């Protein structure tokens, strides 16, 4: 029993080892070639002899202690090989392979031999099969970018807020001494001021635009101040500004009372700003058609130019104090625009032309650049205080300045001319609009008649409509006759 057990164990072990060895081979031919006997290394030379044939290793048990290994089938195979060798042609005996047997396998002997000579190359595992954090470097980059954006948002927002507060603290006294109401915007939902008294904070329209409304002063209806800071909270904008420096701006719009300002259009500012305004603004393009002129005649620096409706206005506006303001703060002034015909920028409507002239208001507009070209600090806001003084002075000046008789006539003529041009341009459209209105009226009346259930009433309404039409025709005919008579 003991021997039998030993035999089984040995058989199992040998079987598993040989199987493991044979696992590496893909086809029978390789298994045939592989042999772990002593003659394996001489296989290539002694191909046509004994080792080519498959050898079956049988373990037999003769007695308890020893086992013998017999090589079976060897003689038979040898004979078979010799027979094969005899049938082959003489010149093939020296060749290791029969050509006909191995068609298409010409390269194989070569590659198998060359394979043994090449060193083993270790290929990197592709990134998508790795499972380490390093392979997610793009994701980490994205998240870092987002965090940077959020940080910049917080920092930019805080800076804009501090600048706005600094501006307000500097200007508060001046504003409160000139206006009864200094209030933040926007108003409450019902359109009323939630707080009618002055408040200490500026309203935010955006993270970079702050509004303030001042009212309750002689001469003007009110003053809207808009602090248009740079978009410091947007990282893209910050990067764009690195290419092209831009300044923060303060825009002030004073709406004058109708009786407190005469009829003129006038602008002074940097040449670039004036050219842009002339293109964009309705009133400047209509009333100041000439190119911006140099203000050197009045003592202004070369950087500033003047756009004016007539020379008298320029002479009247450019008094000593105004020239002093403009000269001393020329670097901070972008544009100053006084107009009684202000209606905002030109509106491009789909039908080509608006049917009526836009509403105009007497307005004084100021655009100032905050010093620093983007790198602004809260203390820079103090430099804008003299400009606010200029605004107050301009309000009073606009009230005092009156055109003489000639100037007034010229101004009236200009306004009439503009209106006539406008009417001519829109004549066709207005006619069409009137025609469509008339047709609409007729249609409505017909419908009313049709809908009338009472036949008597219907008849009466129809008669009334007929009579009206006849009257109209008669009137037209009368008019034509009169025109003919006049022509004669």
């Amino acid at each position, binding site marked *: 029993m003991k021997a039998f057990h030993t035999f089984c164990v040995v058989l199992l072990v040998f079987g598993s080892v040989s199987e493991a060895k044979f696992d590496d081979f893909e086809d029978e031919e390789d298994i045939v070639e592989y042999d772990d006997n002593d003659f394996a290394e001489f296989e290539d030379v002694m191909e046509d002899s004994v080792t080519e044939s498959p050898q079956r290793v049988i373990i037999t048990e003769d007695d308890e202690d020893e086992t013998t290994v017999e090589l079976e089938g060897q003689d038979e195979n040898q004979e078979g090989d010799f027979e094969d060798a005899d049938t082959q042609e003489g010149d093939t005996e020296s060749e290791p392979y029969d050509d006909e047997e191995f068609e298409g396998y010409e390269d194989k002997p070569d590659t198998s031999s060359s394979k043994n000579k090449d060193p083993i190359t270790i290929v990197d595992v592709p990134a998508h099969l790795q499972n380490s954090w390093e392979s997610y470097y793009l*994701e980490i980059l994205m998240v870092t970018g987002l965090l940077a*954006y959020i940080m910049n948002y917080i920092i930019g927002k805080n800076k804009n807020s501090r600048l706005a507060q600094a501006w307000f603290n500097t200007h508060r006294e001046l504003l409160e001494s000139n*206006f009864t109401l200094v209030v933040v915007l926007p108003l409450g939902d019902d359109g009323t001021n939630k707080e009618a008294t002055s408040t200490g904070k500026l309203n935010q*329209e955006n993270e970079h635009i702050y509004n303030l409304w001042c009212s309750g002063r002689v001469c003007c209806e009110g003053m809207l101040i808009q602090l248009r800071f740079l978009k410091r909270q*947007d990282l*893209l904008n910050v990067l764009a500004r690195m290419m092209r420096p831009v300044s923060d701006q303060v825009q002030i719009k004073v709406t004058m009372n109708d009786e407190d300002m005469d009829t003129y259009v006038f602008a002074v500012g940097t040449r670039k700003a004036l050219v842009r305004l002339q293109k964009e603004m309705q009133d400047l393009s209509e009333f100041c058609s000439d190119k911006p002129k140099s203000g050197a005649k009045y003592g202004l620096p070369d950087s500033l130019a003047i756009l004016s409706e007539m020379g008298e206005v320029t002479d009247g506006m450019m008094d000593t104090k105004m020239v002093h303001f403009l000269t001393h703060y020329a670097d901070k002034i972008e544009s100053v625009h006084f107009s009684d015909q202000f209606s905002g920028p030109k509106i491009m409507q789909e039908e080509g032309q608006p049917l009526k002239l836009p509403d105009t208001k007497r307005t004084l507009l100021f655009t100032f650049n905050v010093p620093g070209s983007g790198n602004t600090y809260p203390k820079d806001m103090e430099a804008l205080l003299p400009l606010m003084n200029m605004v107050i002075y301009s309000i009073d000046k606009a009230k005092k300045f009156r055109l003489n008789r000639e100037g007034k006539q010229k101004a009236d003529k200009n306004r009439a001319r503009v209106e006539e041009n406008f009417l001519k341009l829109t004549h066709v459209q207005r006619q069409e609009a009137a025609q469509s209105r008339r047709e609409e009226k007729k249609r409505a009346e017909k419908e009313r008649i049709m809908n009338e259930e009472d036949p008597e009433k219907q008849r009466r309404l129809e008669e009334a409509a007929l009579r009206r039409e006849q009257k109209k025709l008669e009137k037209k005919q009368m008019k034509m006759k009169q025109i003919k008579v006049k022509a004669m």
Partner: protein
Amino acid sequence: MSTNNMSDPRRPNKVLRYKPPPSECNPALDDPTPDYMNLLGMIFSMCGLMLKWCAWVAVYCSFISFANSRSSEDTKQMMSSFMLSISAVVMSYLQNPQPMTPPW
């Protein structure tokens, strides 16, 4: 017209309420950036289900739209844009957890 002091320009009886300009001219003057970024964010979110980098760009677009938005802007729209872009990123990673390959 009674004035307290000739040098005091204030007139309490002339206080006027602020009337915002009519909304017709506002769209032309308003910055269109937040609206464009919102739209781009939504488009990239849709494409993000196929391409991972699109989903990340959508997240960036919604952040930029938020940073440029006006205070009167609807917060619900902002939040929905955020949620859409974040869900696009999450969905694309659930579907395919492997790291992103650069689009170039």
